[in-house]
């Protein structure tokens, strides 16, 4: 085939036509991309319109630092003081389905410079949450219906617990958990960073996962015996972990009560159920399985040759062990206030 024949061939014509269509289409899209560009300011104005139903002014952008943006099981992304004196916080709650997150806008009310409750919650986005369609707009109104209890220090939870307001969408409890964490995170941020309240301090490491009021901790010579009533964690119900720590290492570990709901029991490793995995483990060994947010590391189970598929229950097992070993010295020396 000569060069002239090639340029007259059907193959060249097809290529040229297709290329011409692609170039024209690309040019058109490039022009329209500029014409229809939505700026960050426009996006934010739309968000404000969605939240307030009218144009609202931002008085001040609250500066976020690496320290203050991290809240328990949540991260604060943006925070503003609005023209009406209240605060608008965008927070991402962790602990959703499949380790995903839910991001919400939370209007935190200011009552003469003190925390005044939640004004409104508006959904923004999510990762890995497949049941978000189960949440109607009216679901988010629950978060602003308990301001008296929130002012008294209660937080949101999907489980029926003392000291918390239960907000859950049955059938999407993990997404509900992430939402509760987002709202709790926004409230905690405003209380500590904006309203200047002192952050709740932990007396014991990992105490936020334990129902301390119902737990029994008995120090003896060289060992501490624990009956820890775990807080519910998604599909992991509130079960009791009976642990004995001797010389800083776990000497026995067993559980009482159902360890999982939703049929995930079979996915909890047998060595967790009979406690053999934890025998001889020290605080450092157990804490290495948790990340900086005290969630179970992604490879914590698989790297130890354990079954996966019941992350919430497995996390509760590990947190109980972490509490028992990390606070061992404290209880042994009689510095704790929970022992009999």
């Amino acid at each position, binding site marked *: 085939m000569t060069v002239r024949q090639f340029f007259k061939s*059907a193959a060249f*014509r*097809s*290529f040229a*036509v*297709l290329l011409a*269509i*692609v170039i024209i*289409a690309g040019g*058109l*899209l490039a022009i*329209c*991309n500029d*014409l*229809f*560009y*939505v700026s960050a300011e426009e996006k934010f104005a*739309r968000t404000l319109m969605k939240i307030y139903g009218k144009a609202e002014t931002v008085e001040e952008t609250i500066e976020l630092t690496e320290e203050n943006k991290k809240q328990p099981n949540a991260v604060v992304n943006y925070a503003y003081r609005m023209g009406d004196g209240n605060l608008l916080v965008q927070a991402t709650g962790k602990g959703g389905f499949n380790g995903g997150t839910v991001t919400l806008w939370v209007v935190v009310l200011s009552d003469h410079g003190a925390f005044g409750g939640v004004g409104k919650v508006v959904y923004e986005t999510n990762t890995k949450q497949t049941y978000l*369609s189960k949440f*109607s707009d009216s679901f988010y109104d629950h978060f602003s219906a308990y301001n008296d209890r929130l002012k008294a220090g209660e937080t949101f939870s999907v489980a029926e617990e003392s000291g918390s307001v239960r907000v859950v969408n049955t059938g999407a409890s993990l997404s509900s958990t992430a939402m509760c964490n987002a709202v709790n995170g926004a409230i905690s941020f405003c209380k500590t960073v904006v309203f200047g309240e002192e952050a709740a301090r932990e007396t014991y490491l990992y105490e936020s996962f334990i129902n301390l009021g119902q737990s029994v901790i008995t120090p003896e010579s060289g060992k501490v015996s624990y009956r820890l009533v775990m807080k519910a964690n998604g599909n992991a119900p509130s079960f009791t972990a009976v642990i004995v720590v001797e010389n800083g290492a776990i000497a026995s570990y067993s559980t009482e009560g159902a360890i999982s709901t939703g049929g995930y029991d079979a996915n909890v490793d047998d060595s967790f159920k009979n406690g053999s995995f934890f025998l001889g483990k020290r605080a450092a060994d157990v804490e290495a399985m948790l990340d900086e947010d005290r969630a179970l590391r992604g490879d914590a189970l698989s790297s130890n040759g354990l079954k996966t598929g019941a992350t919430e229950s497995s996390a509760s097992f590990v947190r109980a062990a972490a509490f028992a070993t990390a606070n061992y010295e404290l209880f042994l020396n009689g510095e704790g206030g929970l022992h009999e």
Partner: protein
Amino acid sequence: MNKYAKIATDGMIANNATFKLVLGTCATLGLSSSAFSGLGMGLSVTVVLLLSNVVISLLRKIIPGTVRIPAFIVVIATMVTLLRMFLEKFLPSLSESMGVFLPLIVVNCIILGRAEAFASKRPVLESALDGVATGLGFTFAITLMGIIRELLGSGSFFGVKLWEFSVGFFSNNAGAFFVYGICIALFVFINDRFEKLRRAKRSRALRVPSDALDAEKEGA
């Protein structure tokens, strides 16, 4: 019936893409949970059908047959991207409610089907009419399903709450299949009845009246 009327009725009723040809099922099932999102999707598909049919019809003598499908896809994808940009700029709530189904219009087989079967062979005006008619047929179908599912699944009509009674089944995927099946059955049934009536009317009109025959015999 002139050819334009035939194209219009074919696209909207006789060859309704959703209820008769069962095309574009993914979007139909995914976005018929509410009347508003159904209507939005239907109108979006109509716009893309109109634009892509016009462009493809204009280019039908230029595009070689061997590369026609990739060329159609590029044209359709361009139109869908333009629509997406337009909606994000001017109708963000509609764009948000359509979610992933908006860019997925690119692979909606109704659009590629009409491009291949009609626009690539017919003049611009007819192709444009076919695009609008097919799009409106799709809009009618998906909006009807949206109205039924929204009424039964959440007790509202275009977002306006009418009653508290609702059956969750109609809001989920199984409910979408159920309503789709019922709508197809009803559509085919009604269409068949009309077709039978039309044929009976036509055959009566073609039959020679008996008194005219008698008069002919007497004359002989």
